[in-house]
């Protein structure tokens, strides 16, 4: 693991964490993170698509003319997404039932296309794959954190198991859309507070 590889990989997790730092890929992040299981499921599916498309795009980058790059990226990404959708339907029907509407939306998840254009199109395969994995993991961790927080405080359970005492009145707001915005706002503020650096 050369040092530059390690840097590419961890880059997406902390320094350029997609949700908390770059603020992209928010659409699924807020919508799916009502429970930890769904959040992680979504995160891992996105990681698979992100790593795979980063790899393929950087493999073909010499063949892709600059002004045709967006349509070609999109076709590559949507192929992986649809493939992931059907493979999930065939082999993990349970997860698919809860993530149904959000799997196709991964194709427009700004991270996937953002990394394809910003990184994969300019670097060789190895770095792109690592970057894709790193970014995907960063996305999954942030999504997981959001999902866990919203589930614990919003519904009193974690991974479906009751965590909070029965007397705890679940803070329904967190499960609702406004709660997601407020929570992310507070989390980023907290992050700024500790790392002393505005995004």
């Amino acid at each position, binding site marked *: 693991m050369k040092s530059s590889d390690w840097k590419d990989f961890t880059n997406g997790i902390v320094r350029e964490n997609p949700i908390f730092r770059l603020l992209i890929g928010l659409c699924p992040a807020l919508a799916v993170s009502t429970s930890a299981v769904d959040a992680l499921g979504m995160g891992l599916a996105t990681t698979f698509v992100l790593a795979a498309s980063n790899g393929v795009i950087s493999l073909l980058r010499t063949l892709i003319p600059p*002004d*045709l790059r967006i*349509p070609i990226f999109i*076709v590559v990404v949507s192929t992986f997404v649809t493939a992931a959708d059907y493979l999930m339907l065939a082999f993990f029907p349970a997860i698919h039932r809860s993530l149904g509407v959000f799997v196709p939306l991964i194709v427009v998840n700004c991270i996937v296309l953002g990394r394809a254009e910003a990184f994969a199109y300019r670097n060789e395969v190895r770095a792109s794959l690592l970057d894709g994995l790193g970014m995907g993991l960063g996305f999954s961790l942030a999504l997981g954190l959001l999902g866990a927080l919203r589930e614990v405080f919003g519904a009193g359970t974690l991974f479906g198991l009751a965590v909070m005492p029965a007397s705890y009145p679940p803070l329904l707001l967190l499960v609702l859309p406004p709660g997601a915005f407020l929570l992310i706002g507070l989390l980023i503020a907290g992050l700024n507070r500790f790392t002393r650096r505005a995004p």
Partner: protein
Amino acid sequence: MSLVFAAVLSFGLLGLLLGLGLALAGRRFAVETDPREERALAALPGVNCGACGYPGCGGYAHAVACKGEETNRCPVGGAAVAASLAALMGREAAPFEKRIARLFCAGGKDKCPERFTYKGIISCNAANLVGGGHKLCSWGCLGMGSCADACPFDAIAMNEQGLPVVDEAKCTACGRCVLACPRGLFQLVPQSKRVIVACSSKDKGPETRKICKVGCIACRLCERNCPVKAIAVADNLARHDFKACEQHKVCVQKCPQKTIVVFPPSS
């Protein structure tokens, strides 16, 4: 087999169609940008501050490359950009005098008291709206720092007296502070002219004396004693003619209110 064939054919054709369409549109909508304009744009700082009078660097680059605009209009870029643009356009650069934003007021908290304490939005524009400003002097600096916020180069910092201090090294005379100040207290003055009348009050002399310890009371002593007649009083306020002024600093000694100040020699 037919499903795969149908899929490949239909999607492939769509791809072909769109590929051709995009390429053709690319040609039909091609914008013939003059290559010199792109290189000029590359030479500019890209802050889009508009101080050159054009809508951003793109506008100025276009003017220089295609309309033969002077190459020294970019204050932010200063002499360096002027030189590189001139070289690019094959013309020698016109002499370039660096300018600095100067505040024409010295009425800090210690010199000019407040009529009431202002607890509203931290912006000079807002403070200016509330009953004509919370400072006793209706001309002077309100100290809410709108100029500091507006400065894209962080060249302005507010001191504890609530007055903006301009860092000459960072200031690029982009003019943002001049626009931001609701009372127009900032002006861009050539750097070599260091003697400034630090006041903008047009109140009558006795009035100003009551309001501010360092206000210009229009006593005309400076006007009478200036060896080169480079300073004159109009509307109860002294103003230098910076072209004529030769920095004798006679006016500084003569001014009873110490309104005329000498900005510290540039470090």
